[in-house]
């Protein structure tokens, strides 16, 4: 068993060489790695050429990790309002007047129509409101978004169904991801990552950000822009809504419920400076439909105040001087330059389909990240020196073999992480340091067994062979238990903790190759070369 065929030796050496090659890009700067990637000829699959390094986690390179959650209550309220408007429209179309109007419930609306003939007219139309839910995986689900029930004494209830809401949340998350991506891209950050997390959350990770507070403000704004007239005295109170006004220092002013144009009709928004006052403003342009509506409204409302409403706050309410038919206009509102910039970004990216709330934020400054890398490196070197010296002092030549295997083991972890594009976090560095301590366990198990077998009177070859063979079952069992714990950690943990699990899992997998196969090969080659009479420890 100590005889290794040449083919085997060559393949192990080749594997080691590959490990070193694929770990090597980590020694280069990110720019140098990009240069290598760019120089790969097109006919060559890019994974053949080692050019990838380990991705540093946000805790090491600095950056922001923000988790946003779709406000389901807000979304439900919006859906109920849409439902109420739809029902109102149908009532108007069918000329049915319900007894006591439309009642709004937390999850739907209800109305009482005692007249059977009216109900017969109304019900088919109401039933049309219920849309079937389609699912990307299983297609038609057979479920509808709205449940329409007809109760005693003509009570009709329309309720948003649970699957309908879940589906709506799912779509809202998908839409929000698109909007957020446009917003983050507009901030000019490098390699942001935006992904869905669970049913109703979005994880945004932006490395190396200078101003995390601004990121959060930009992510969290719904950016729902509306143009409405300021209500004139004498307007029916049902058509008026009170809103805080930025212009008037937060004072509430009455605004008509009727919306003239919304942000979705904008095609462009750019920050600029007002020619009269020289203060920062945002210039915008409407699409054809928006321009038409805006032109018509402003020509009818010359002399009235037009409220520019952003997220239920009146940004400003200028007086309409002349009809604006060109389809463009400007928003002023005592902005700073940055606020005007951000507003333009938000308007271009579009409004979020629902309110998003920041439920988790983790930001690490670039200084702390660099310090952590420095400390992690130092700890790794010191741990390696400690363990290498200790193993050599205890096992001599065999310790040296174990040490070579240990170095290859760490190189393999880096190579695998680079190939897989795995993220190295601070706990991941701790995992590497810990692995340095535990990886030699396999060697220790083998060597101690060899000693025992030799003491029991076996010849050197048979002691070495028995040592490897008998220790292997123990190595397998002990690594399996470690592996199970690490695997659970991987599936449950997120971010930094998951980085620890990744390192640990890779460490356990590679230890079998390095500590068992590689050490055995080195011992085998040594034996053939030196022909020793006794084991050297």
């Amino acid at each position: 068993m100590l005889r290794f065929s040449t083919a085997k030796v060559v393949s192990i050496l080749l594997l080691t060489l590959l490990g070193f090659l694929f770990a090597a890009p980590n020694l280069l700067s990110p720019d140098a790695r990009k240069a290598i990637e760019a120089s790969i000829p097109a006919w060559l699959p890019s994974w053949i050429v080692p050019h990838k390094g380990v991705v540093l986690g946000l805790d090491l390179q600095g950056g922001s990790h923000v988790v946003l959650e779709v406000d389901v209550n807000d979304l439900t309220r919006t859906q109920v309002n849409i439902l109420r408007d739809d029902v109102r429209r149908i009532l108007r179309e069918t000329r049915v007047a319900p007894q006591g109007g439309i009642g709004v419930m937390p999850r739907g609306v209800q109305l009482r129509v005692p007249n059977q003939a009216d109900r017969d007219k109304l019900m088919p139309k109401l039933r049309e409101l219920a849309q079937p839910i389609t699912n990307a995986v299983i297609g038609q689900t057979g479920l509808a978004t709205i449940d329409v029930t007809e109760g005693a004494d003509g009570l009709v209830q329309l309720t948003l169904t649970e699957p309908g809401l879940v589906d709506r949340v799912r779509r809202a998350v998908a839409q929000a991801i698109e909007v957020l991506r446009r917003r983050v891209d507009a901030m000019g950050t490098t390699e942001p990552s935006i992904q869905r997390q669970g049913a109703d959350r979005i994880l945004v990770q932006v490395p190396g950000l200078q101003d995390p507070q601004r990121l959060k403000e930009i992510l969290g704004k719904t950016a729902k822009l509306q143009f409405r007239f300021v209500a004139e005295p004498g307007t029916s109170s049902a058509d008026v809504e009170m809103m805080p006004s930025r212009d008037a220092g937060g004072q509430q002013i009455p605004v008509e419920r009727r919306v003239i144009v919304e942000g979705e009709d904008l095609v462009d928004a750019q920050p600029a400076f007002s020619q009269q006052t020289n203060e920062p403003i945002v210039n915008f342009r409407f699409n054809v439909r928006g321009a038409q509506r805006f032109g018509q409204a402003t020509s009818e409302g010359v002399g009235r105040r037009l409220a520019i409403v952003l997220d239920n706050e009146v940004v400003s309410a200028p007086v309409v001087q002349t009809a604006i038919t060109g389809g463009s206009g400007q928003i002023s509102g005592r902005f700073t330059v940055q606020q005007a910039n951000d507003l333009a970004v938000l308007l271009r990216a579009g409004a979020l389909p629902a309110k998003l709330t920041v439920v988790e934020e983790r930001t690490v400054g670039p200084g702390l990240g660099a310090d952590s890398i420095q400390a992690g490196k130092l700890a790794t070197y010191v741990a390696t020196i400690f363990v290498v010296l200790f193993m050599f002092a205890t096992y001599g030549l065999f310790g040296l073999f174990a040490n070579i295997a240990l170095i290859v083991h760490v190189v393999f972890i880096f190579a695998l992480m680079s190939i897989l594009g795995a993220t190295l976090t601070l706990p991941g560095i701790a995992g590497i340091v810990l692995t340095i301590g535990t990886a030699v366990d396999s060697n220790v198990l083998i060597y101690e067994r060899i000693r025992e077998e030799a003491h029991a009177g076996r010849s050197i070859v048979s002691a070495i062979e028995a040592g490897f063979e008998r220790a292997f079952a123990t190595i397998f069992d002990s690594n399996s238990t470690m592996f199970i714990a690490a695997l659970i950690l991987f599936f449950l943990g997120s971010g930094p903790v998951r980085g620890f699990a990744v390192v640990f899992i890779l460490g356990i997998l590679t230890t079998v190759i390095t500590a068992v196969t590689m050490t055995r090969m080195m011992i085998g080659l040594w034996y053939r070369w030196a022909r020793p009479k006794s084991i050297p420890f």
Partner: protein
Amino acid sequence: MRLLRIVPDGTKIRFVRFRRFSYPLSALFSIATVILFLSVGLNYGIDFKGGTLIELQAKSGKADIAAVRQAAHGFGEGEVEVQEFGSAGELSLRVPLQPGGEAAQSEVVRNARAALEGQYEFRRVETVGPRVSGELVQTGTIGIVLSIIAVLAYLWFRFEAQLAVASIIGTLHDIVLTIGFFLITQIEFNMTSIAAILTIVGYSLNETVVVFDRTRELLRRYKTLPVEELLDLSINSTLSRTAMTATTTALSLLALVWFGGQAIQGFAQVMLFGVLVCTYSAMFISSPILIYIGVRFREGEAVAKAGEKPARVAP
């Protein structure tokens, strides 16, 4: 060349006799842990408690704690904990969870930045809302429970039931004492601590598995050996390996404690304690349990239930 041996060859230490001391001692520590857990409680980090953690570095090199404390009153409701840590000029601020749900937490960071960004660099900002922290508590608990069940299942499959039970008791002992360590040192208990505990679960089983592998092997070889001697022999013959591995692991963890930096120090300290406890419990807690449950003991003879099964490793 004279090589280092930390354990001499052929030790004949009667380990399992120590159970008269180790069992009461561990029982005492476990009870103390429960009492401390109920009275003092763990120092939960914001992962589990929710709230905001801010780490500052004074731009001028010197932090003015009194001024920061003063400013911190305006960040939100509740007591803001301001502490110096690490090198000079570094401060940590802990703001408790704010009433008013998820959105209210962001307000704290905004206020803090507005008040302190002039004189301080914000090295770390972490905010965890009430819902996320609740979920993390759940995840952490599930993780530990699941890992114990999974490992137990593995051991049941690979070993005999008694050995599995004995090693799980040892592992539970190690978890309890590690939590005791958290309680005494008041090291922050967060998601990284869960990682530490799961790693300790893995290490603890690693240790018992090595001893029990040997126990099982010896059971087949010496069918008439009294069980106490059998266990002592198992521990003694693996002692050198146990000491070696404990030393290399402890050495690398010491490197982490000394040089790994502030953020990882707590983790490294807990792991170091865990490794020592695991080594202790494999010898003095899990193994002696077999005297009571593992191998049926009759008239000075170890009639090994396990020994009747076919040998897995060739003798």
